[in-house]
């Protein structure tokens, strides 16, 4: 496949920036101790991948992100389906949800630390808290938006509750639910890195902080660029899956990287 004109044009500015960066640092205009230079970053990345340290950190970050996301998905989907099907219950629980939702997930970092100590569990719990709201809200809205006649059909066929959920509700609401899940997965990665940067001694966030503190800017930038690449790949992958599974690719990117 030939790269499109769009791709080529998009590459112009990054390439120019990298060349200017390298040249500026070799000419002594840019400070090495904070800016490093692309060639050093490349060799730091090479070493990091060769000795497995970056891959290990990547695994730790992803493990926490996926664990937290999975917990949030189970809770958010189940609660969302139940609340979506019973508006009366939703009206009763709704205000509590509205009160908990604005709490910034990072405010729970100290709490999670107190409960679980350092490690995977505290990180995943903060991630789960951050991810559960978009999934819950979108699922409620998706279930609420199902064509009422479909539900009448289910009732006419005398389906059991679980059959109704599996055969009617989930397929009918899937398109919008996938949007919520996609949003949540993006949030999971962001929160994972944030928790690691603030205090959890594991993963890429901690790796970057450590590189900064030990005055190895090239390693810090190598991990930063790698992280950007992971974020981008995850985004593309979920966009592809969403378009594939849910038919219409509903673009929620405009919502931005909410935490």
């Amino acid at each position, binding site marked *: 496949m030939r790269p499109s004109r769009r791709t080529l044009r998009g590459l112009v500015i990054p390439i120019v920036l990298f060349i200017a960066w390298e040249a500026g640092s070799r000419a002594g205009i840019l400070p090495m101790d904070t800016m490093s230079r692309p060639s050093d970053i490349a060799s730091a990345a090479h070493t990091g991948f060769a000795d497995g340290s970056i891959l290990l950190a990547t695994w730790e970050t992803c493990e926490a992100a996926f664990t937290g996301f999975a917990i949030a998905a189970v809770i958010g989907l189940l609660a969302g389906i139940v609340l979506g099907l019973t508006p009366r219950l939703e009206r009763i629980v709704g205000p509590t949800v509205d009160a908990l939702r604005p709490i910034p997930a990072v*405010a729970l970092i*100290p709490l999670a630390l*107190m409960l679980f100590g350092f490690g995977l569990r505290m990180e995943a719990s903060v991630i789960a808290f951050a991810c559960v709201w978009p999934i819950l809200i979108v699922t409620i809205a998706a279930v609420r938006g199902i064509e009422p006649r479909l539900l009448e059909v289910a009732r006419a066929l005398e389906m059991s509750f679980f059959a109704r959920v599996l055969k009617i509700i989930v397929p009918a609401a899937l398109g919008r639910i996938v949007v919520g899940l996609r949003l949540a997965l993006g949030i999971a990665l962001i929160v994972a890195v944030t928790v690691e940067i603030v205090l959890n001694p594991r993963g890429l966030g901690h790796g970057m902080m450590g590189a900064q503190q030990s005055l190895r800017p090239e390693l810090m930038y190598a991990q*930063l660029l790698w992280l950007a690449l992971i974020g981008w790949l995850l985004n593309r992958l979920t966009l592809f899956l969403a378009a594939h599974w849910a038919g219409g690719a509903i673009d929620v990117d405009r919502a931005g990287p909410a935490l």
Partner: protein
Amino acid sequence: MTRRLATIAGALAFVALLLGAWQLGALYGAISPIFFPSPVRTLEELAKQVADGRLWQPLGATTMRMLWGWFAASIAGVVIGAAIGLSRTAREYLEPMLEFLRPLPASAVIPVAVSFLGLSTQMSTAVIAFGSIWPVLLAAVHGFATVDPQLAEVSSSLCLTRWQRLWKIALPSAMPDILAGVRVGLGIALILAVVTEMQASLPGLGQNILLAQRSFKSPELYAGVVVLGMLGFIANQLILGIERRLLRWRALPE
């Protein structure tokens, strides 16, 4: 009317049930009061902080931190977004790079900011501004790029000047996108304010709750979380209010 009252009563009863269970659990030692201080203890702590004025300084510090970074980001985001959105060439060259950078967690630039600016207030403001600019910027690019072609023709046929087109047509038509972006940006600004306070030991609610945890003063920790939740809620409601005012024309009775 009675149904409405019943719903409100139900909602209150649900909250009361949760808090009551928690209170009783703490009272009878079913859950550890070290980790889960009773709601009453938390509220007492909060009331005490309000009474002796200990709450205001960190609350003000965090709020100002959030607002400054967010404000700078919003202005810059709209201006840069307009420039990119209105020029097809700029979009072709810059959009792929923006798309690559967008999923980058905003907090990931903290180490970079620290190495440039140290553990300082400027570092915090820079990180907040960097993090909260994305939703505004992308929304503005989208909003300015998708001005209805019919409106473009209207402005041509009225011979509007460039400035009039920008000010009277493009900006108002991008406004719904921009306001949505600004609102998301404010949420991010609060999060990054808390994160940078924790990271750089800057005065504010973020540092307070971390210190409370380190000295196992869990009522203080919970009180801080409650205040942060309220701050987030109020900030969001304020922007929603502005949105409702400015976008009155969007939700009108037929």
